[in-house]
């Protein structure tokens, strides 16, 4: 399984002007091409507004493309019928950025994690009891406990909520997981646990990750390959070690320099004034 993104362009139309007119549009993605191989963690780094989230929305077909193709296993996602697309979505799941907004506060954890099993009932085909068993198995897998099953989201901390989000994404047994800034709303200490969990799951379940982040440290830690995106255009891509140690573009270098390092000696401020 590979995901091929070929020359994808996405324009958003501008605001209406008068009866028929349109203001100037906005190009969120400009001729983006990527190839993600099976079993790899692919990282996408960029600042806010660079088009990271638009790209994930295009992959999930939540947006239409202005130009280009997205091939999943050689099949063009944007040419599938709605039924075929729903089948495909069971192989392609997403974990959202904000664990406080992405869980329905009126559903129990059991119902939240079981929901994709119901929606994709034609693919997974479990009865109610089997679903509960599967949910329990998933909760244990992401480091939660069985007594959490019938609690509500507000009873959990940010890190635990994100684990619930991961369990929900894994429920239907996907091969490809899109992680849209899964740790940016979390404390560093909790982030470390979630990142280690993602590592473990990838090895256990043979997953492919498409990991979006603006935190270069996180990308370095979790990804094999990385692409840097700036204002809808890919700046560079390649293996993580190569991009981080020998960045070719000025933009990547700037991002790396701006990254705050917890070693006081690496601070750009400390050199000029010895405090």
């Amino acid at each position, binding site marked *: 399984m590979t995901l091929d993104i070929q020359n994808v362009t996405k324009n958003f139309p501008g605001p209406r002007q008068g009866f028929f007119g349109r203001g100037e549009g906005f190009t969120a993605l400009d001729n983006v091409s990527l190839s993600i191989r099976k079993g790899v963690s692919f990282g996408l780094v960029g600042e806010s507004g660079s088009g990271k989230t638009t790209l994930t929305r295009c992959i999930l077909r939540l947006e239409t493309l202005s130009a280009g193709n997205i091939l999943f296993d050689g099949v063009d996602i944007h040419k599938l019928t709605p039924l075929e697309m729903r089948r495909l979505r069971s192989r392609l799941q997403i974990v959202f950025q904000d664990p406080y907004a992405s869980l329905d506060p009126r559903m129990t954890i059991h119902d939240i994690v079981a929901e994709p099993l119901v929606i994709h009932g034609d693919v997974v085909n479990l009865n109610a009891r089997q679903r509960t068993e599967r949910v329990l198995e998933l909760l244990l897998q992401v480091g939660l406990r069985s007594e959490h099953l019938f609690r509500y989201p507000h009873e959990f*901390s940010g890190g635990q909520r994100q684990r619930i989000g991961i369990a929900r994404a894994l429920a239907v047994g996907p091969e490809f997981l899109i992680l849209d800034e899964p740790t940016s709303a979390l*404390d560093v200490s909790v982030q470390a646990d979630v990142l280690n969990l993602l590592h473990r799951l990838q090895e256990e379940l043979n997953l492919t990750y498409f990991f979006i982040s603006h935190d*270069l440290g996180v990308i370095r830690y979790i990804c094999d390959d990385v692409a840097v995106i700036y204002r809808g255009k890919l700046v560079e891509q390649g293996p993580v070690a190569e991009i981080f140690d020998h960045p070719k573009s000025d933009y990547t270098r700037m991002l*790396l320099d701006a990254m705050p390092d*917890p*070693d006081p000696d690496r*601070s750009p*401020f400390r050199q000029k004034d010895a405090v």
Partner: protein
Amino acid sequence: MTLLDIRNLNLAMKSYEGETQILHGIDLKIERGEIWGMVGETGSGKSLTGLSVSRLVPSPPGRYVAGSIKFRGKDVLQATDREMRGLRGRHIGMIFQDPTTNLNPAFRIGTQLVDVALHAGHADPSVLGLNPGASRGDLKKAARRAAVEMLEKVGIAKAAERIHDYPHQFSGGMRQRALIAMAMIGKPDLLIADEPTTALDVSVQAQILRLIHDLVTERNIGVLLITHNLGVVAQICSHVAVMYRGRILEAGKVDDVLKRPSHSYTQALLHSVPTAHTKRGELKGLNGLMPETAA
């Protein structure tokens, strides 16, 4: 005189289930020219310590069980509301984490800046470069001038035009700059920045940190920077205090604490930060050390 002297601060919060003590004897001294970083996880009490300094913790439910917060020798906890209004904005500037919720969407950026400037100017016209007894008109003009100057200073291009914009016309980084401008316009002696860069991109974060750093060197103010990012602390802070469940575990110069952490919690916290050099499997979470509590 010490700029800020927090001694044995104990804060309790009331809820339906009774009173819980949140801060257990916080001691902290900030001198002019120092940037103190306060690190800790969610719920460790770092924000409440910051809010206490400008007495923004509502009481009830908050109650100070013991301790004092002396700002320039005067106990903030004993001050009247009127005295506090004189301090906030004028002597103690505050920057909050989320620039979207801390700007009023219904007013222009300029209006909100001028408001703060006028407030400081009424108390002390010299802030706006005027003599005591300046007329209202002069104050207003000076406040408007100061607002534009301040916006320029925090790096907003074409400040004279952008001042008429509404907050939604600004990007996240620009809003945060506007908030910093608002905090600095009264020329405060102490700046409390509560997670000022958490919502921002790294490149913008670097600019904001540089801005705070430059303000400190230029005006010789004291800063209390509340953050959970040890990287930020290592970059600009001169001192750091590590908080854990309402206590300061370790405090001192950044070089001492971050390079030779004496407390195991600080070490664990340092190990949980992914850097450009961290290899797989090296990262360690704090599970077990700090039980996850409901947010």
